[in-house]
């Protein structure tokens, strides 16, 4: 990374010295900055974004240059100097990939009206500031089908981070998928209150396994829960990216992110001058989210069941949030024939029938 930057700087200097001006080729190149919450090697959330960055570099050779900053905390204002630094380096597009960067992106976006800001998983926007996310609930529903078919004890464990709509959407859609094939199964929750603590996430999974769960799913950024499942001879569903190497005997599949095509489309739009800030929420039909290939650990018939629903989702014929959907008390929250609109999904604060656990108020 540093070597490449240095080389770039030397080339630029040489060009300057020879011709007295930057060559047309260099001037056209657009510089794109990425800010990540975790290290690029986390094998999870940040890793998935970084794959998108690499895809972008390959999709637009000679037209883009990318820079990334990893392990940037989103619990404080750390991201602000990082963004300024990226802009000083010449970045004109910045992708900030964690929820907590939102307010800081808003502030910096006002200071630099000529730089384009894209923020992942938030809801704020501005004239040069858009947000984007994906409907990971669709592949989560599909992974629920796999888990529902796999479980023998009819108890599925789910390790998740915080009591926010994003996590609640995830576990609700997962449970709907489970119960679509196995109405007797229940989903047990453990909240960790952290996105990234391998030991803690593993502990949570161990507690679930001790309570009799035989499939573990997760809304966490490390592979801790999957490793716990493998150690106890149980099975696991990952998250973020295909992580079959961490726990090959347990891993079934994972809902995954595929950011490359979206990043490429956005940068292309900026180059063409047609870019406008938007609130982008892509689904399986757009290719932003998907279900990782099922491994040999997956139950018989799961592939066919998943493929069927996946085709319907892509064709727009199946909606994860279509009623009737009951909550934990048995009350109908989404009526038959109705569906939960985007606004309802973004502020979701109740758990569906079949979940054993509660939302801390």
């Amino acid at each position, binding site marked *: 990374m540093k070597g490449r930057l240095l080389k770039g700087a030397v080339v630029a200097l040489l060009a300057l010295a020879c011709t007295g001006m930057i060559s047309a080729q260099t001037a056209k190149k657009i510089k794109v900055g990425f800010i990540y919450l975790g290290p690029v090697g986390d094998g999870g959330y940040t890793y998935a974004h970084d794959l998108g960055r690499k895809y972008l570099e390959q999709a637009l050779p000679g037209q883009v240059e990318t820079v990334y900053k990893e392990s940037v905390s989103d619990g404080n204002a750390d991201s602000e100097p990082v963004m300024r630094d990226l802009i000083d380096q010449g970045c004109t597009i910045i992708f900030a990939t964690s929820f907590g960067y939102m307010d800081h992106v808003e502030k910096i976006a006002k200071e630099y009206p000529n730089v384009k800001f894209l923020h992942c998983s938030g809801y704020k926007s501005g004239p040069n500031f858009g947000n984007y996310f994906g409907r990971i609930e669709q592949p989560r529903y599909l992974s629920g089908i796999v888990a529902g078919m796999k479980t023998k004890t009819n108890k599925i464990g789910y390790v998740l981070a915080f009591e926010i709509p994003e996590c609640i959407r995830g576990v609700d859609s997962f449970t709907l998928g489970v119960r679509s094939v196995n109405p007797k199964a229940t989903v047990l929750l453990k909240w960790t209150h952290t996105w990234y603590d391998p030991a803690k996430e593993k502990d949570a999974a161990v507690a679930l396994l001790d309570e009799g769960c035989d499939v573990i799913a997760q809304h966490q950024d490390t592979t*801790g829960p999957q490793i716990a499942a493998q150690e106890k001879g149980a099975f696991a569903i990952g998250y973020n990216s295909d992580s079959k190497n961490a726990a090959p005997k347990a891993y079934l599949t994972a809902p995954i992110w595929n950011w490359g095509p979206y990043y490429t489309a956005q940068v292309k739009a900026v180059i063409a001058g047609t870019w406008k800030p938007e609130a982008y929420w892509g689904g399986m039909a757009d290719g932003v989210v998907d279900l990782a290939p099922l491994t040999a650990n997956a139950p018989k018939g799961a592939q066919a069941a998943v493929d069927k629903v996946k085709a319907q989702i892509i064709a727009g014929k199946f909606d994860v949030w279509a009623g009737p959907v009951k909550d934990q008390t048995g009350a109908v929250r989404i009526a038959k024939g109705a569906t939960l609109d985007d606004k309802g999904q973004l502020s979701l604060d109740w758990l569906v029938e079949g979940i054993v656990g509660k939302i*801390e108020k």
Partner: protein
Amino acid sequence: MDSLLVKFLAGSVQAGTPLLFATLGESLTERVGNLNLGVEGLMLMGAVIGFNTALVTGNPALALLAAMAAGAAGSLIFAFLTVSLRANQVVSGLTLTIFGTGFAGFLGQSLTGKVTPDSVKAFFTPIKLPVLGDIPYLGSIFFRQDIFIYLGYLTAVVLGFYLFSTRPGLNLRAVGESPAAADASGVSVVRAKYIHTLLGGALCALGGAYLSLVYVPAWQENITAGRGWIAVALVIFTGWNPYIAILGSFFFGGLDIVGFRLQKYDIKISQYLIDALPYVVTILVLIASSVRKSARNSTPGSLGEPYFREER
């Protein structure tokens, strides 16, 4: 089938083992009069070096030795600063934590997401001890664990014996209580401080190595997540006594994982409060131990003070 309670207690032993090693290491260091606040950094150094060695060699014994060497090297910096140069111990210790964190983060860049090799994992799978493992309840909790945990028990007992029942142990405690008196009676203060600070650092590093080699077992940045600081408080809680450190560490290990077990039941306490338990108890313990005084288990007299022979 063991009951949930037994499983929870066995889990507490596992969660408490990193704390046990770190507490033993820091107890030894403080007994000789050196307040080393670099435990968190030393644990991280041990975790990353141990993991890297396991990855390269696939040999668990080499991994443990390498981790200990890393911890000893880290505390050598501390010992040189505080014993030879007589720098402020608190500042030197904090610096060591910052250094260790950065060191581990830097070395770990290419390791993130990697998993402990199978040969090492196999070595650390739980083994049921003959006879002891068959004791009802206690057997399941203490004696069906992995070899690293048994090493923890052994280290604690050996260290306790060394401190309280041998001449070198007596000498090192004398150095910690009153270096001038020890010096006068012919004990080499500098040598005792160096040896035991390095040994203590090596033990702290083993605590970190347990996390990356056995507990998680994969490398993730900042894998200790503050456990080194809990160990510093545990030293006071356990009165610088290795035997009490065994129970104290497992008690705190239990506090660390109790939250997930309680989520199952409908308890009217906020989980955020339960998550904060280790820290709340730490504060309570510090208050309690500053009230209680006992001759055998109290702050070493010269703790935190540099020793100048000329000032005698």
